[in-house]
């Protein structure tokens, strides 16, 4: 049986194809202004890459904040349930997932079967999410991909105290003006994300093993900051960014 998960997030759209419990492949594109098109395109592109025909797909589940706009999907399931399923598939021991995506950060508690037992999400504000990091990268005139490695070279992480993305950006600009090292500024940004997310995750209890998923998990600096603030080791899956899509594809199996 072949199932597909399509995860349309605020920044990127992801797709994953699963055949009989095995990940066949995955793809990521930018969502852009049209979530409907992005969901369709990431799906079509991935099938083409894998040389699969649409008819070969048995079932499709959409997830992410654009989940209801994916016309090809048979069902929409929230990213909370999908990230738990994806994490459980990649590491069945995991009991807590921290997912930081483009505009959401979530902490998900799960049982031994991968079922969600509780969750917490960021509220009104997108500080501490992927978009927050993008804004900071722009202020620092750096490519976001290098953020993680650079932050590991910090000798004294700067203090970023503002909870608001816009004000935190001004703080970063003042730090630049004061001649603070970029490495320290970036490490400070990661620590501010770490504090915020760990405080939120405390609500569901950070039961080990903890896995980080979502696009921001590619940033080793954020992972280290989360470990520092929580005092717990964090596992990162190789497929962190497409974890939600994988979970959606697996849920599609259960619902067929």
């Amino acid at each position, binding site marked *: 049986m072949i199932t597909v998960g399509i995860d349309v997030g605020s920044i990127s759209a992801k797709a994953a194809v699963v055949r009989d419990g095995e990940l066949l492949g995955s793809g990521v594109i930018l969502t852009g202004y049209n979530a409907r098109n992005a969901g369709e395109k990431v799906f079509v592109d991935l099938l083409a890459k894998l040389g699969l025909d649409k008819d070969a797909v048995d079932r499709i589940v959409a997830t992410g904040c654009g989940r209801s706009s994916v016309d090809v999907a048979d069902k929409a399931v929230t990213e*909370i349930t999908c990230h738990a399923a994806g994490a459980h598939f990649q590491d069945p021991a995991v009991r807590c997932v921290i997912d930081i995506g483009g505009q959401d950060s979530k902490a998900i508690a799960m049982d031994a079967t991968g079922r969600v037992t509780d969750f917490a999400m960021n509220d009104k504000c997108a500080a501490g999410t992927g978009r927050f990091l993008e804004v900071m990268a722009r202020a620092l005139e750096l490519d976001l991909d290098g953020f993680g490695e650079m932050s590991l070279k910090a000798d004294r992480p700067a203090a970023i105290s503002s909870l608001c993305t816009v004000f935190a950006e001004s703080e970063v600009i003042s730090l630049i003006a004061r001649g603070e090292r970029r490495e320290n500024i970036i490490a400070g940004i990661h620590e501010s994300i770490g504090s915020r997310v760990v405080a939120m995750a405390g609500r569901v209890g950070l039961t080990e093993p903890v896995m980080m998923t979502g696009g921001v998990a590619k940033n080793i600096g954020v992972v280290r900051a989360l470990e520092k603030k929580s005092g717990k080791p964090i596992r990162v899956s190789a497929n962190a960014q497409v974890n939600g899509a994988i979970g959606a594809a697996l849920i599609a199996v259960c619902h067929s």
Partner: protein
Amino acid sequence: MNGAEKPIDPEKEKRKIKSVGRMKDIMTHYYIEAKTADQTGKKVAWITSGGPVEPLIAMDVIPVYPENHGAMIGAAKMGVDLCEKAEAMGYAGDLCAYARADIACATVDGGPIGGLPRPDMLVCCNNICGTVLKWYEVQARYFKVPLFILDTPFSHTEYTREAHAYVRTQLDEYIAFLETQCQKKFDHDRLAEVGRLSMAGQRLWQQVLDTTVHRPAPMSAFDAFFHLALIVTLRGTQTVVDYYTELLDEMKTRVATGIAAVPDERYRLLWDNLPVWFRTRWLSDKFAAHSACLVADTYTSSWCGTLTYLDDSDFLGSMAQGYSRVYINIGTDQMADMVVDMVEKYSADGLVMHSNRSCKPYSLGQYDIQRIVQQKCGIPTLVIEADMIDARNFSESQITTRIDAFMEVLTGA
């Protein structure tokens, strides 16, 4: 539009609560009477929603509730405009939206009914929050009218003898204040009668709410939010007793004939905190789409929650305790116990808590109550962040995901 009438869905028609029309008539009549008080020679008192209204009724003063008006402003989606107006007047955006809307509305006679009638006096009881003190002081200065403040100490763990004596003395001062304002002697026999009617109304309201113990529930918390207005505004009158008798009969008939608020009710939820007045329909539809019915809530039951402390035969003597020990004037542990009891009583499968940006005393402690309910009842819980009338604090996409995910947890989907 071709002018053709929308076809009536007989199923939907059957589920409509018939008493709604009568309720609207009563409320319309009430507001007309209040707004024409200056022509009929009656006095108008503005009073906080948790305040002791019975002495006003006994003195033939028309009680008017800025908070009920606030709910109407919210339901009419006029909250943001008025809140912005208050902010332009210099009030902080963090202040309660009812307070902001009321303070702004008074200066422009805005809102869905063109503003409240001018008060002759203000009665403020701080059993619901501390904001009301400053809010009513602002209005007392604006309207240049006398203000009576009834201070009900917070009952952290117990209601002490000292607290009782303190509040009981103030009730005598309240009566003396009314005698001065109305230029007539207070009639204690009349208060006893009003107290009896108040308690009868509260008992009936509790019975109405209790009909949802039945599965499927004949009404939902969203219906309770609407029908609540009478026990708040006209408590202590025969009108309330008559209306809730009628509503209770209708609910009993619905139970007997199997008419449900949510036709395919599979999940039963408990709601905590005030409604999101500008989104009640949206939320109701959202939960109903998941076959979930909000069968009870901690808010509407507050207006009959202290019956055990009230006494028919000594209403005045028991008022101090009845008004001091309301739901949000007690400690978090007691609140949690009450929520746990409600979960059991109404067989709730989950708890939905509205963390209300406006109402700090109601929202403080919610995470503790959530944890206690999870531990004692083992049911899933959800916190959604919103506001009772300030729509700027409502993020549809965020709340949709939370509710959908919560229902996935609850149903094991």
